[in-house]
Structure formats: structure tokens, C-alpha cells
């Protein structure tokens, strides 16, 4: 066990925990932030995507000891009440079906728009290809990302 200070969604947390514990389980089990999802555990599906200093990361494969003093943002911290342009666009396009993968999709999309406010179709494909949606909402996700890009202009 080791002590860690984590900055999650602007709040500080102190934890005494095994150093190898993936951040995903720290968030879900210890901080009760369950918006970040488990899908594969091997960084292949993107359901666990969070931001580390604004960069999209797979939290299932990120040991808590590797976080350091970087700021963690989860879906719960993306906005207070779903006001982020990506979230608004998701609602406008009524993207989700089962909804399970969508937190990860939204976090990846939000990081994409931050880096690239006007992504092309292939930019979107490239950024989003790591996120599986088993329900097949890809066409709506793409449309929503484009809508969100327009909102930001």
C-alpha cells in the first residue's frame, strides 16, 4: 500500500492504496465515481477514457502511481450539468442507445475538439477508433462531434 494525492475534477483526495491499482478502479471503487466504465481492462475499447491534464487516457491501464500530480477529469467533471458542447450535441442528436460506452466516447470526443476544434471526418475516425460502441451509434457520434464543433465557433 502507498499514499497518493489525487486531483479529480478539481478536488483533492488522499488514498492509501496498492500502487499498481488501475486508476479506473480507484475512481469507481474508492471515489465512487462510476461514470467511467469498465469495458475490457486492456485499453482496447475506450469505455474507461478520462482526461489527464486534458489528454484522453485509458484509465483501466493506468496505474495510480503513474498519475503523479496531473489533474484527472472524469465524465462527472466534464461539466456540472451536461453543459459541455459535446454533451449538448450528444443530447441534440440523441446519440445513446444502451449508453454504456458513451462516457468514454464523450471524453475522447471532448479531448479531440480541444486539440482540433474543426476536425475532418478522417480526424474524427482516427480519434474515435479506439472507442467501441456495440450498439452501433457511430454515425450519430460523428454527427454530434460536428455539431459540437460548430457550437464552439
Amino acid at each position, binding site marked *: *500500500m502507498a499514499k497518493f494525492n489525487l486531483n479529480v475534477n478539481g478536488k483533492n483526495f488522499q488514498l492509501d492504496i*496498492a500502487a*499498481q*491499482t*488501475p486508476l479506473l*478502479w480507484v475512481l*469507481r*471503487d*474508492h471515489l*465512487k465515481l*462510476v*461514470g*467511467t*466504465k*469498465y*469495458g*475490457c*481492462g*486492456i485499453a*482496447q*475499447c475506450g*469505455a474507461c477514457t478520462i482526461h489527464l491534464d486534458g489528454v484522453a487516457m485509458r484509465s483501466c491501464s493506468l496505474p495510480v502511481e503513474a498519475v503523479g500530480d496531473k489533474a484527472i477529469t*472524469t*465524465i*462527472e467533471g*466534464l*461539466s456540472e*450539468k*451536461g453543459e459541455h458542447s459535446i*454533451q449538448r450535441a*450528444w*443530447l441534440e442528436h*440523441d*446519440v*445513446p*442507445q*444502451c*449508453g*454504456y*460506452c*458513451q*462516457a468514454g466516447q*464523450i471524453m475522447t470526443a471532448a479531448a479531440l475538439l480541444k486539440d482540433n476544434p474543426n476536425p475532418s*471526418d*478522417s480526424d*474524427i*475516425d482516427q480519434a*474515435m*477508433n479506439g*472507442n*467501441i460502441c*456495440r*450498439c*452501433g*451509434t*457511430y*454515425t*450519430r*457520434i*460523428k454527427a454530434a462531434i460536428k455539431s459540437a464543433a460548430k457550437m464552439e465557433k
Partner: protein
Amino acid sequence: MALIKTTYNRRSFLKSSAIAGGGMMLGFSWFASCKPIDDNTELLMPDEWFDFNSYLKIGDNGLITIFSPNPEFGQNVKTSMPMILAEELDVDWKNVLVEQAPYSPEQFPGAPFGQFTGGSRGIMMKWKPLRIAGASAKQMLKAAAAQTWQVAVDEITTESGVLHHEASKKSIGYGEMASLAAQMAIPEEVKLKEPKDYKIIGHSKKNVDGLAIVTGKPLFGLDYQKEGMLIAMAVHPPAFGMTLEAINNTEEIKAMPGIKDVFPIKTYKDAYKKGYFDTNAFPEIIAVVGNSTWEVLKAKKAVKAKWKSIEGSTNTIDRFGRDISVHTPAGLENTTDHNTQMETLMAKPMKVVRRDGDPEGAFKKAAKIIERTYSAPYLAHNCMEPMNFFADVKKDKAHVAGPLQGPGLIEPTLAASLDIPEENIETEMTRMGGGFGRRAYSHYMVEAALISQKVNAPIKLMYTREDDMTNGIYRPTYRAIYRAALDESNNLLALHVKAGGVPESPLFANRFPAGSVDNYLAEEFAIDSNITTGAFRAPRSNFMAGAEQSFLDEIAEETGKDPIEFRLELLKRAKENPVGKENDYDPERYAGVLELVREKSNWGQNDANLHRGVSAYFCHNSYAAHVLDLTIEKGKPVVQKVTCAIDCGIVINPDAAANMAEGGIVDGIGNAFYGEMTFKDGVPQKNNFHQYRMIRMSEAPKKIDVHFVQNEIDPTGLGEPPFPPIFAAVANAMYKASGKRQYHQPFIREEKILG
């Protein structure tokens, strides 16, 4: 207006004191009710709620809560079912709250399917009860107003949650009348609206859980938390055909950090007579219980056990009141052996399921015979949320919560396993992170409850992705041979289909093109297996449609006919002069979707770089047709566009319905291109997404256009029907692009194309 018997008795149409008092809802408030997200104003909660029936309560301020009876896995019934009720109740959608009803066979009769999500039956089965529930409550509100105002009830009208009496110019809101109305007699018959008067049905409403989903609220079974809850995982045998002999390192595991216990659990009681959905491969597995997911995960990986072969057995299974016998062979099975077995059986006579005319005679005198073989592999469901369940089992009662499609299907097994009567088991249905048929087989709920009972604590059982993929209830593997006899003028004389699979035949002998050909023969076979299989989005259809519609495409080409025109000619025959009386489809509606997709896709337009495939199918009481446009870019097939036409009767929530059709199309393309599970010595050969190829953003169609046939026919299934025909639309377009027909799924196997 149509007058309709309410058919409710007091028992099913109850004024539930449990709900009125909030007692039943308290345990459920964790999944807080959802506000329609297209209304931005805060809704004020009423001081008091009044129950009208199992489906709704009305607050003193006019707010309505509608309980969505069926579990939600993305098909959006949690929005569309309340829409149906709200329509007949005649309320403003923005004043409607929606809550997921708990499992309650008393309130939602029809067990085991009263609250079943699957088979594309939800809307079809609830269409009438939901309308009656809304109309009955409206009638009770009218009766209350009539009594209050001392006027005839027929003189009362309603609009958007307000009661009016035209002659006296009186008006009052539903909320103010709710207290009195809830005490009114339940009407014996009610008037239902005509479709032309619909204000909510047919008008798109946003997903009621939309905001909760995009803000990461706890909605799913895996999100379930309870004070003192432990985490449990299971270790199942490494191969189908095996079971546990002994755990080798119990003490070592127990000594690991955070671990409470490790022990074997028998998945069924001895001699338990299983139900039809009690599908579960392993008689005995290992449970690991501890404080946190990571600790349990590490312990699970460290478990060492001795496994042994199962013995072959023949069991009697209760298939909804009818006993059937199921043989489970011993042994470690291989995909290559399955393929050889199927090929061998194909060459032998098999069970004839339908014969019209003289098919053998027709083949003898044929000028040309075309014979093609089609196959499809096992598929894993791969729901994004792995199987899981929460259970808190006490001495004489239990509380379980989690994702499942059919609580009524597993509840008897749960009760028998725990020795606790069903009425003492409280079952919450969480939003499912996908289902696709997998969660109709929810034995993981029983496993969770047995673990909780053993450790005497609330636990949440979680399958890892590897558990989920390697302890599946797979889509069976199938094979079919189609033969066509043509005369010298290329007229279709006879059609012959032989189909089978492990462990079931995929054949629907009475589906199109049966009924459109004078001489028709359908035969089938099945091979026993110990690999567990079950429903997978449009069971059996999901293979047969691809085979049949690919074959028809080939026959059309052989006869020199346009593939849509060829199908329409057959359907014309089936309509005007059908062969046989058992045909299970309506040729006119079938032709309707083909005609609509032909129009909407601008079929016949020529673009040398665009390769188009068409396909249509009928299943789950609905009709779907697709035109798929493909290009080849850097050697890879790229789906540019899919145009889809569907006839599922009245469409409740058009945009959400389109979303589901889009999903079925993407799912189908993914499985047609990549989907495959194989077995070697009983071991599933893929265990996570690095091996099991799923369709991703860049491989999805760039555009999908969904069109619904407009009619006033009672609604039928939608979750499944768009899925099966897409396989052949892919195959037929790939043929246009490459000149090579696709017979064996998955269609893309070459590494250089897979990338």
C-alpha cells in the same frame, strides 16, 4: 374512436399501496426518476402522488410518473412505452417523469414474459395494455370531474392534462382532480384514440435517460453500490466440457490482501429441472470475494484449480410447460470438427420440414441447377457492460439488482437455488449496457445470489471481459445449402434448402421464398454440443437472411433479372397465387419495403465506383430492406451509405426508431465483416477485444438513411428486423465490387484488408 375492453381485473390493475406509500419505490430511488431532457425548466415535485394503476401515478400538481415495465437495453422502451401511455392519458410530455418499474409479475402479468425485453416483442405486447392504462386513468379523471361539476361524463373533454366542460366553461387540471379520480371505479371499457389524433406517438421524443447518460450518472448494474458491499468474481473452467474438481490453493488466496473468501459454488441444485432459459455450461465454478475490484481481480488470476471433464447427460427441460429432452455430450469440442460434422450431415437425408409440389422431379428435369453452400461461425454477444449482478441474500429474503432481459425467466431458478420463495425476492432491473439476447440467460444473477448467501453479505458479482467472452451464450454456428432448378428460359422451377447447425437448425421453412415457388423442399439437422448457445439479435434469421438473400441475388443474376425486380416477381406470385397455406409473411408488405428502398436509394443509378447490394427480410413480424453502397479504397471495402426501408406498423418514436435501425445496420456490417468465435479443445479462441474484432467508427457506414412505411397497422418489432438482411446487402455489394461471391462469414479474413 375504438371501444376496447380494459381486461383488467382488480388484481392486475391494482392500486398498489406499496407504490402509494413509497415503500417499494424507496429501494429504487437510487435510480432517481428522469426528467425529459427536452424540457429545461425545473419540475416541482408534488406534495402527494395518487395511484391509478400499475403504470402510473399522478401528482397533486399535475406531474405524471409513468413506470416503464420492461427492462431497457438501448432499444429505448423506457421512452417509447411511456409515450404510448401518455398519448392516451392526454398529457403534455414535458410533465411526464419516467421510472423503471421493478420486477413485479402481479402488476405486469404474463410471466415469464410479462416484463421481457427480447424477441422485438416489447412494444407489440405492451401496445394495448399501455393504451388501456392511459385511457382508463383519463376516464377516471373525467368521471371525477363529472361528479364534481354534476354534469354528464360524456360532456367532459381533455387536452394536455386539463379537463374541460364546454357548456359551463369549467376547466381543471389533472393534478387537482387526481385525488378523487384515483378512487373512481375502473372503467370496464375505454375509448382509444385514432392514429390520426396522435400528438405524442409518431412525434420524436428524446431518450428520457439521455442527460443521465451523458453526465455519467450511475444507471447500470456495474454502477450499483451498497454500504458494506463486497466484490465477487468467478473463475470458470478453461474449456467447455469441463467442470471443477478442486481448488488447489485456497489458503494462499485467502491470505491475499483484501480477500475475504474463495470457495466452489454449484451452479444448480442437484436434480433441478431447468427452464428453457437456464443455459449455463459449468456445473461448478469458483467464487472469489473481497473488498475491492482490483484486489479480487489479482486473487482471481492467482487461483489454481484442478478441472475435470463433464460427463455426457440427457436432461429434461421445462420449455414453458412442455417437457423437452436435451442431450449434452461430454468431450472437448473443436470448430474444425463442427465444420466436418456439418458437411457430413449435409450429404445425408435429413428431417423434411416442408415440401411443396414435386421438388425432386423438378430438379430432374431442370436445364440448370445452381447449388451454393453458406456458413456462419459462432458469435459472442460482447455487450459493452460485462455480465454482473448485485445480491444481498438474508435468511428468508433476498434483494437482487442488475442487468437482465427477462426477470421472469430466471426468478424461479433463483428462488429454488436460494430456498427462498419468489415473493420474498425483490428484483431491481438496472439499465443494461447492451443485451442482444445475452442477458435473457441471466444465470449470473443466481451465481451472485449464491455467493452472497455463502458469505452472508451484500456482494456485486462482476465478470471480467475475458469471463464474458469465454463463458458466453454464443450465437450457434450454422451451415446451409441452397439449390435452385431453372428451366431453359431461366424460370425458377424449384428451390431446395438444407440447413443445420450446432446445436440447432436455423431454418424457417415457411418464410419467403416458400410460397412463391411451385416446387419447394426444406430440410434441417442439428448437432448436440456442450458449448452454450442462445438468442443473438434475430436468432436464426441472422444467418438465414444472409444465405437466402445472397442466393436470390445470384439466381436473379443467372436469370438476367434486376435483383429487386426478381424478388418482386416472386412476391407477386406469393400474393396472387401462393403455394401452400403455411406461409408466415405478408407478400404485400414485404414488397412494400423493397419498393420503398428502391425509390429512396435511387436504385438503378449508375456510378462505376459505387457497388450496390440489395437485401430484404421478414422476421419478428416486421419487414426490412436495405440498399448498401460500397466503394473500394486502398483495397478495403468502405460502406458509403445504407438506405433502409422498414415496415413495423405504427412507429412510436421515429428518431429513436431510426437510431435503433442504424445500430442494427452497423452491428450487422461489423459481424458480416469481422464477427467470429472459434473453439479448440473446448477453449474459446478469443478472450478480449484485441482478438475479437469489433466494428469501429472508421468502418461504419458514412451515411445511413432510414425510412419507415407509413401505415396505421399495430406496431411490431424493430430491434431485430433491420439486422438479418444487412449481411446479404454486404455480400451482394462485395460481389459487385470484386466479382467474388461471399459464402462464408466473416467475409473479411485477409490480414492485409483487416489491417
